[in-house]
């Protein structure tokens, strides 16, 4: 049972354009959501997070949007840069009560 779903295994975007990565979840008890970025042969690194009491969190070129009613979140990267090419994992938790649950990841390729 996949509680966190990233339905797009891959995404290609031109440099300078916006990248939008999507994530859906099924567990309404999740109250904290995170995005991790992973380069080949490295572990995932934390990128940005959002609490369920917010609908938007911005950090530089990265913005995460949360739509609780739709159980959907998205990560926007603008402008996209070649160095953003990586696998992006969406993760969710029920504060302190459950371990992080990860999606399968979306491979982003930013083309120069």
């Amino acid at each position, binding site marked *: 049972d996949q509680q966190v779903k990233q339905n797009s295994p891959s995404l290609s975007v031109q440099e300078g354009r916006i990248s939008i990565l999507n994530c859906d979840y099924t567990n309404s008890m999740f109250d904290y959501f995170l995005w991790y970025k992973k380069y080949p042969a490295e*572990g*995932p690194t934390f990128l940005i*997070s959002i609490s369920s009491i917010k609908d938007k969190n911005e950090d530089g070129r990265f913005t995460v949007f949360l739509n609780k009613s739709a159980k959907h979140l998205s990560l926007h990267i603008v402008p996209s840069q070649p160095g953003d090419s990586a696998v992006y994992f969406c993760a969710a*938790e029920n504060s*302190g009560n459950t*371990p992080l649950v990860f999606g*399968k990841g979306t491979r982003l390729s930013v083309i120069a």
Partner: protein
Amino acid sequence: DTAVSQTPKYLVTQMGNDKSIKCEQNLGHDTMYWYKQDSKKFLKIMFSYNNKELIINETVPNRFSPKSPDKAHLNLHINSLELGDSAVYFCASSRRGTPQEQFFGPGTRLTVL
């Protein structure tokens, strides 16, 4: 300085063998984790330790045994290795509490022949 380190990076072994993967973090975190990323790319938690005490033990065969000699180390021992154990194993650490912004190691790719 490496924040979370794992050794070895690659491990190739025969079925039935016993092997260990070591993990160390120098971040001063008190919670450490082991994850398994299988061929389908799912990253799933296996164990979590807080201050050397096991707090999460997901449905994992008892051939897998974590050992935490101190809060900076969490090693993973695997007995009687099976083909299905082939995966990438990631260690991670975090400060206790929310959010669980975990710092991951580089992973250990285990191949069982």
